[in-house]
């Protein structure tokens, strides 16, 4: 067990190294001179030269990579050229926002996906199974930005029930915060719900055909009891661990959702940074999210081994 853990932790380093290479390369090799893009409309040659010098844009690539990595090791992720603020500060500002969105989306996804998965598994092969599966899949099949705009038009413009966009911090007003988050969380959670449903259905089907479930049935226990107490508990293990992998999907989905609903989170930060050639921001954010994803995977793997008595 310890060797397993140590080995996994050791593997994080090369993975992160590749991530850093990948994102650094993609950013630095993006067409378009960041200095010109960021020099503003007047494109004063003096300003362009100044920016190039200040941000080492004329240095050879390997040297810029080394500078960046050295900074990261010190905790300095660079600064946003566009608004001259440290990337680290921007990230700490926006992480809670996307975190809240992701959490609410996850809750919604669980609320939709888990019951759907259970019902589909228990009624496997019947109309219920097909109907529920289809209903859960619609979230995955609908382009989330389209759904977002439709919801805004319906709930904000026509019905005036919810704010069309923006974000209010929960410390400022919890009610406003939840009102601004309801639609984006729903749009995002919708898409993840299908994944949850699939995991749950798969796991339940597997568990329902095992020996001890058959034993429980043979003992004469009521079906609901069998499902909820025996099957569900065991089915949850793979579901929980697989959900960790959905974190990546959550972040991908957040990118467009935040764009449409103007939520100042990670997703919006990255998209704007790519188009503004604010490469330090992109590099910093991607490195961080990659790290978080790897850690989550590690925790999920550990949890799987720990929780699953058969593997120990």
């Amino acid at each position, binding site marked *: 067990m310890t060797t397993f853990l140590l080995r996994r932790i050791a593997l994080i380093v090369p*993975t992160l190294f590749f991530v850093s290479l990948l994102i650094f390369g993609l950013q630095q090799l993006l067409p378009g001179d960041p200095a010109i893009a960021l020099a503003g409309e007047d494109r004063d040659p003096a300003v362009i030269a100044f920016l190039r010098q200040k941000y080492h844009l004329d240095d050879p690539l390997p040297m810029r990579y080394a500078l960046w990595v050295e900074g990261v090791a010190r905790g300095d992720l660079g600064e946003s050229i566009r608004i001259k603020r440290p990337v680290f500060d921007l990230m700490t500002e926006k992480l809670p926002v996307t975190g809240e969105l992701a959490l609410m989306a996850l809750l919604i996804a669980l609320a939709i996906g888990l019951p759907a998965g259970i019902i589909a598994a228990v009624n496997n092969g019947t109309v219920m199974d097909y109907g529920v599966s289809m209903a859960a899949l619609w979230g995955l099949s609908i382009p989330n930005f*389209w759904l977002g*705009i439709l919801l805004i038009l319906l709930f904000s413009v026509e019905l005036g029930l919810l704010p069309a966009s923006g974000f209010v911090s929960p410390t400022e007003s919890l009610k406003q915060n939840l009102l601004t988050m309801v639609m984006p969380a729903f749009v995002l959670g919708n898409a993840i719900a299908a994944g949850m449903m699939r995991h749950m259905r798969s796991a339940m089907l597997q568990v329902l055909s095992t020996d001890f479930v058959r034993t429980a049935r043979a003992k004469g226990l009521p079906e609901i009891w069998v499902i909820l107490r025996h099957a569900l508990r065991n089915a949850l293990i793979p579901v929980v661990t697989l959900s960790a992998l959905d974190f990546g999907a959550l972040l991908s989905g957040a990118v467009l959702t935040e764009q449409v609903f103007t939520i100042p989170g990670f997703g919006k930060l990255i998209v704007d940074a790519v188009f503004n050639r604010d490469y330090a921001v992109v590099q910093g954010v991607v490195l961080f999210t990659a790290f978080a994803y790897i850690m989550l995977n590690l925790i999920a793997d550990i949890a799987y081994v720990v929780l699953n008595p058969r593997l120990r």
Partner: protein
Amino acid sequence: MATEILTGIASDEPIGEPPWLRAVRRLVRRPTAMIGVAVIVLFILAAVAAPLLAPYDPLATNWAAVRKAPSAAHLFGTDEIGRDVLARIIWGGRASLLAGLVSVMLALALGVPVGLVSGYVGGILDGTIMRLIDAMLAIPFLILAIALAAFLGPSLTNAMIAIGITQMPIFARLTRGQVLSVKHEDYVEAARAVGNPQYRIVLRHIFPNIVPPLLVQATLATATAIIAEASLSFLGLGQQPPTPSWGSMLNTAKNFMTQAPWMAIWPGLAIFSLVLSLNLFGDGLRDALDPRRE
């Protein structure tokens, strides 16, 4: 019921039939999967027959008929410079289907060999490749696609390449997993003992076993790719005007949601139905190919 519990297979299935026939039989018995197949085939036929089917030239502009509501002359209405929306949906199907298929094929072409080699050879090569794959998977899919598409330049081809590259790691990992689980099976050991060359072992013995999960993943990946193309187009990175694609039609339509909602409804519905059908088919395929389940 008793027979099922004891043997774990449905009692009316002949025991000796080839696995693929059994899979097809199971698939056919699943209505949602069949609906999915029907819709997919419909879209493919429409896209192929576009020149015959489309009522107008999808690029023909008409200043007098700008943003007209659906009518007898234009069943789906017209867009912001007077082009027929129905014609653009039919022709746009080509772009979206192509985006889905080509990117997945690229992902397969890149990912499967990498996974095969990595799984079969093992050792340091496997370790390095897997770290690279892990790195690609650690970066959120859409962000990687955006960075790639921005890097390559906005066009449908580049979007397909970007999406294909972004989906490659999943296939690589899947293939490798299958290879690892099959590598030490008896029949593979036997083939090795007999003295078969490596490539033959891989192609003849290992490869056929990994096709089923790859097929399922490919179907689901096509669905993801179509949505990814729409997402990239929404950001301005995919298909560029005037050639239609459902995603780029949505991108333009979002500015006219209140005055000309039909510009957004039809492409959105098209994406939704095709993607849903692919997902239904993929799920059905997964169930049908799973040896453990009824």
